[in-house]
């Protein structure tokens, strides 16, 4: 009876927590540095969130002001301009660079000459390693409206800009700034973006192409019906993963924007920068409130992406 009962209720009796920790002490020791790093670098700074509810200036005690900064924030038109600009610039940039990466990957994949392919790959990866400051300086020189601006010079040489027309100030004109910004992003990030796509392409079963050949598919049809479907999952994954980071836009805009194009280029991070660093006695409370709001939106986007990821890939991103 007792044997029968034991078999029927085969219950696993866990050892006490202390013993289990001791038994796995090696793992916990390995975990410790990560945990300490996490607390110091990620959780400790989060304590600063409370300043969003304070008037917190470099001098004097912080004064609790409740929702004052949020009220100011939500009623400030420049903030909303910056907020919508952030979303628009980030999402359009993301879509454009992803599409460009896929197109370039497919073209690279079609290249027969292995040496040329490797050289080309290296060349298009390089801009990714250039800092945004250097990138902005280079493009500012190229796009300068002065006599030394290369692009304006070329447009004039080709007769596109006639004598009665002024040089185009690409980075100082609201109509031109965004297209230029996207082009610079394509130039800088497309190469790096091809890495994931090329890895996926190299994993496509060659039998699929052979079958397509037997069916008489042309090269374009093979790309359309074999390569692209194989890439689809990767493209969606990359898009989803990057969607969570759209609120983080700063450096690329900061080095390229100016007062004349603020209506189309100001993003939340640059707005925070101006409110904090360009006044004689900043109120960090307001900057923190803006930052907190940005983080909340970012957090919501991460959750949305997680949900989307589960739908598309069957598993979340976290």
């Amino acid at each position: 009876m007792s044997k029968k009962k034991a078999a029927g209720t085969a219950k696993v009796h866990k050892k006490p927590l202390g013993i289990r920790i001791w038994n796995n002490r090696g793992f916990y020791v390995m975990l410790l540095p990560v945990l300490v790093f996490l607390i110091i670098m990620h959780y400790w700074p989060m304590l600063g969130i409370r300043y969003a509810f304070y008037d917190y200036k470099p001098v004097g005690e912080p004064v609790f002001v409740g929702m004052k900064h949020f009220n100011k924030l939500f009623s400030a038109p420049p903030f909303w301009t910056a907020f919508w600009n952030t979303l628009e610039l980030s999402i359009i940039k993301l879509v454009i660079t992803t599409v460009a990466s896929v197109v370039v990957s497919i073209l690279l994949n079609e290249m027969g000459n292995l040496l040329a392919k490797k050289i080309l790959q290296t060349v298009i990866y390089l801009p990714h390693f250039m800092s945004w400051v250097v990138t902005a300086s280079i493009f500012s020189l190229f796009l300068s409206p002065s006599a030394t601006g290369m692009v304006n010079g070329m447009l004039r040489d080709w007769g596109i800009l006639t004598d009665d027309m002024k040089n185009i100030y690409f980075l100082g004109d609201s109509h031109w700034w965004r297209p230029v910004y996207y082009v610079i992003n394509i130039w800088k990030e497309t190469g790096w973006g091809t890495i994931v796509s090329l890895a996926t392409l190299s994993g496509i079963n060659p039998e699929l192409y052979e079958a397509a050949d037997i069916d008489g598919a042309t090269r374009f049809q093979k790309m359309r019906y074999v390569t692209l479907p194989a890439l689809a999952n990767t493209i969606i994954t990359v898009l989803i993963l990057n969607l969570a980071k759209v609120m983080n836009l700063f450096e690329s805009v900061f080095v390229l924007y100016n007062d004349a194009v603020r209506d189309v280029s100001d993003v939340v991070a640059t707005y925070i920068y101006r409110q904090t660093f360009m006044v004689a006695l900043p109120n960090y409370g307001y900057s923190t409130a803006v930052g907190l709001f940005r983080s909340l939106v970012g957090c919501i986007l991460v959750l949305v992406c997680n949900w989307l990821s589960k739908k598309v890939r069957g598993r979340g991103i976290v």
Partner: protein
Amino acid sequence: MKKKLLSILLATAMVATMAGCGDKTPADSSSASSSVADTQATAPAEPYNLETLTMVVNGTLTASVENRQDAFEEQWEAAVSEKIGHKIDLVIQQQDHSGYVDAVGRIFAGGDLPDVILMSADMYAQYAPTGILWDMTEAYENAEFQSRIELKSVNEAMKIDGKLYGFAPATGNGCVTWVKKSWMDAVGVKAEDITNWDAYYDMLTKFTTEDPDGNGKNDTYGVAAAGFVGFEAPYINYLPEFWQDAYPAFVQDDNGVWYDGFNTDATKQALLRLQKAYNDGVIDPESLTMGTKDVRTKYWSADQAGSFGAFTYWAGKWEQTVYDNFETNGVNTELVTLAPLAEVGAYLNREAPVWCIIDDGDGDNSREQAVFDAFIETMLDGDTVQMLWTYGAEGVHWSTAAETVTLKGKDGKEDTVKEYTEGQFHLLPSPNDPTTAWKSNAIDPSLVIAPLTNGISSVTDIAAKGNIFFSEHSVQAPKSASSETLTNEGGTLNDLKTEVITEVVTKNGDVDQWMSYYDEQSKSLVETILAELNQ
């Protein structure tokens, strides 16, 4: 289970850290002070023995780390230790020049307060009312250098409600407008004719359309500046001919009543002038994005294509620098300094940057007085320490020894060799650039309020003439405003002004419409600020 354990650990750590921080108020700028205060309170009667002096400064201390700051520091410590009768260490915290406002904010927020700090007039106006700056009025009045001060008005102008919270060792200086004489000759313009706006604008137009550099192309501009309006007071000093009588900030009228200088007809007219110049291509469109260094470089660049004719910049020393760079780059021209146009009246002498002493708030002035004695009192001693602030370290930046000094030739040019006799003052090659001679340290010798008593001067004729010209044609810039709401909402107002200026100037916006927009958007803020300023 592991996830649960991890969650518990993280939650515990967070609670612990929050609790740990909870009992200490953030940015407790007075915490360091109070600890100092506690120590002070025990022995207030004893003279304060200042062993270490920490100073925060921007790029105006040209004896930077790469320019042998160690030598400056060492010689300062030796000289000041001898003067105050005990050893003192100088700790220099030199911050990035362009990010100085931000750096100072962080220093204060961090609570690790220095003893002395350099502040621009804007910063001074904002920080003085907070109580963090020591009232040095009495110490200043009793200073040894008082009898030698030639320009008393400089520090008198810095007083707020009769109290002095910062000391200016030199005048603020200001900008004058120079024009390339070769360009004037090329387009047939005479300097003496440029007396009013119409003549000035006509000259700028000719610089834009009549190929003054003679390269066969109309690729030059009349004028360029680092922005259409500046970030620091006096905001209009890089384009005074365009702004004329407008002053786009809070300013006092003749009766001392504050008003919003941006929301005036004068500003509207200034924006229209800028708009016209931008549309006509007379003003370099890159003025929008250029910093002062970009503008300078463009002005004296070897290739004058894309350059400009009229340049408004700091009088005196910088005029010499422009000449030096013309020579280095082979730009063959003289500079003509324009007298202020009839519509401008006078150039603006900005409020001087000041050295402020941090008040530890303990009610005992002995530490602050000791800082004053060691730092400010010695700064204008007329001799050794003033030499350090003016020219840097002896034997490193300057010398009076009999020697041969060689300036390396630039771009393949021959070295310049000069012989000096014993006792002859001369500047040595810059430590970080042996092709150029050292010029000066933090105090411009031509602007100092109490000159050296040892007879040494390196002010060139060009710089001296420039300074005299400026002093004869300038008035004191309006005083910077300070109020709580202005401090809190300064960023918002700056954004709004910038929006209006760029919309009108670069996008041909209707000036009336945009000024109405400014009025509408800023009305309640401006009213609050004016009420605070005029109370």
